């Protein structure tokens, strides 16, 4: 052991700045701190590559199961089932991003890391911004893998490059909003095990009671109402429109499905506008065990 200076006098050689005094400095720190945390979270992927595997293998399995097993018995008017299916799988996968985020946040809570971060002079938003943006990068990798898988089973984008791009941008926006929902769940639940059970019993119904895998026309009227107003349905319908995977025109009375693209953007922005400030607020007073 070499003798190093642990004493407070060591501060004289450290360039410790004070807290930011103006809005510009504050914003700069929010960004650099957010990046520091994002880099930390992305480094985790190298340690736990199976997490990335999980994020990609299960959607691929869904594509294959639905395309070849269930798809053989599901007839979709005006479209072939694989074309119909892929936008649904995209949205479902992105919705499940909130589980990844919630688990990560709950894990940090239970390990006491959130306490450490909160005792550091870093921007209050950084832990959450870093987490959600790193998870977004992970989500993008998942989307790319799934698009490849979709192309392999015969799915195509028919509506042109720009619309296709808009479709992916919408997925990213929705995924980002879901990540913020995930941070709230993680901060509230505090343990990864609790998150796991909660997220799966809620996300499965939310993504299944929708037009994700089957059209809503033949559902019982009350269930169809729920499904038609479910933001997931608007998202899926918007993706079908933007990718040009449209089947029979929508005949129901729900506004979001009559105008799926603007509705999907609105829903996503609304989720983001509600959950992001709520999450930061919750983080300010979050304590571990």
């Amino acid at each position, binding site marked *: *052991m*070499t003798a*190093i*200076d*642990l*004493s*407070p*006098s*060591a*501060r004289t050689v*450290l*360039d*410790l*700045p*004070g*807290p930011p005094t103006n809005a510009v400095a504050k914003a700069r*720190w929010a960004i*650099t*701190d957010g990046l*520091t945390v994002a880099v*930390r979270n992305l*480094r*985790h992927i190298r*340690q*736990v590559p199976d997490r990335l595997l999980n994020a990609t293998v299960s959607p691929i399995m869904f594509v294959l199961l639905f395309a070849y097993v269930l798809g053989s018995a599901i007839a979709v008017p005006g479209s072939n089932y694989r074309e119909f299916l892929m936008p649904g799988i995209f949205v479902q996968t992105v919705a499940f991003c909130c589980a990844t985020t919630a688990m990560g946040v709950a894990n940090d809570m239970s*390990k*006491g*890391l959130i*306490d*450490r*971060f*909160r*005792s*550091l*002079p*870093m921007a209050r938003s*950084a832990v959450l911004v870093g987490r959600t943006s790193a998870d977004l990068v992970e989500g993008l990798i998942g989307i790319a893998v799934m698009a490849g898988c979709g192309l392999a089973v015969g799915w195509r984008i028919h509506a042109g490059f720009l619309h296709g791009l808009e479709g992916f941008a919408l997925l990213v926006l929705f995924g980002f909003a879901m990540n913020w929902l995930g941070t709230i769940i993680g901060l509230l639940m*505090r343990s990864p095990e609790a998150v796991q059970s909660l997220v799966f019993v809620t996300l499965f119904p939310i993504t299944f009671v929708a037009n994700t895998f089957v059209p809503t026309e033949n559902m019982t009227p009350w269930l169809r109402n729920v499904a038609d107003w479910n933001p997931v349905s608007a998202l899926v319908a918007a993706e079908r429109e933007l990718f040009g995977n449209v089947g029979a025109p929508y005949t129901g009375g729900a506004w979001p499905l009559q105008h799926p693209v603007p509705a999907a953007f609105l829903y996503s922005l609304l989720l983001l506008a509600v959950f992001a400030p709520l999450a930061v607020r919750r983080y300010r*007073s979050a*304590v*571990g*065990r």
Partner: protein
Amino acid sequence: MAAEDTAVRAVGIRKRYKRTEALRGVDLSVEKGTVCGLLGPNGAGKTTMVRILTTLLKPDGGEATVAGCDVLRQAAQVRYRIGLAGQYAAVDELLTGRANLEMVGRLYHLPSRQAKARAAELLERFDLADAAGRVAKTYSGGMRRRLDLAAALVAAPPVLFLDEPTTGLDPRSRNDVWQVIAELVADGTTVLLTTQYLEEADRLANKIVVIDHGLVVAEGTAAQLKSKVGGERIDVVVTELDQLAPTAAALRSATQSEPTVEPDDRRVTVAAPDGAATLTAVVRELDVAGIQVADIGLRRPTLDDVFLRLTGHRAEDAEESGELEEVTR
């Protein structure tokens, strides 16, 4: 004590959780360059107090300054001047030891080169240089605790908070931590540590503050606290539980004072104002009563006695008294 000599000052701190009143008006002052030991059982409010002083929790009432800055109005300044390490060794298990410390340095807004240099220094100092490139989840409990402590020292903070720094450590690692704390204090750092180990407070702290049920029940040096319970004690351990009552009676008649009975340990303790002479009288009395004694001894009072005297229960037994955890889940 002049204000500029005080590293931590808290007045009337109150904090209430849904069902429990965790702190009911705690005053605390810690002189610069000293160790203050916050001693109390689980649920006494120690961790809540640390969380308030480190800006993690807002108190419901009272005020506090740390390193001259107000914890409510100048929270950001406080965070630049403190380090926090806790019983849960808050290190990122999926990062290497080096990456953990560099990240903390970056979050204190040290320039990248300094963050790296500081991380390297601390890894060296805490005997982690060889393991610096390994992810922390491969570390032993002692190594993690050292990494946690190193992370708290990245900014060379003038005030260090240690929440049960040695809970769950083996004796060797515990001694390492004690040695580091002693060095830090010798170099001028102020340390506030919480502990439920009387030995730890006795060994490290210049001042001990005993809290129980959210209130300060005593404070002073270890010697001052011990003098509160008077002189030496006699411990008698009996072989059979039904011997406890007759033993207590024998001690009462030999010393004219009221003994404490602890059935769990089959032990009866009484004050021995005249030391060895009292011991002789007690032995004679026990012999006359025909009591089978497993062990008997004369000893100096410990902080355990202080605790028992002040709170009515031993420090380590408190968990069994059915108190709520101090943070509601």
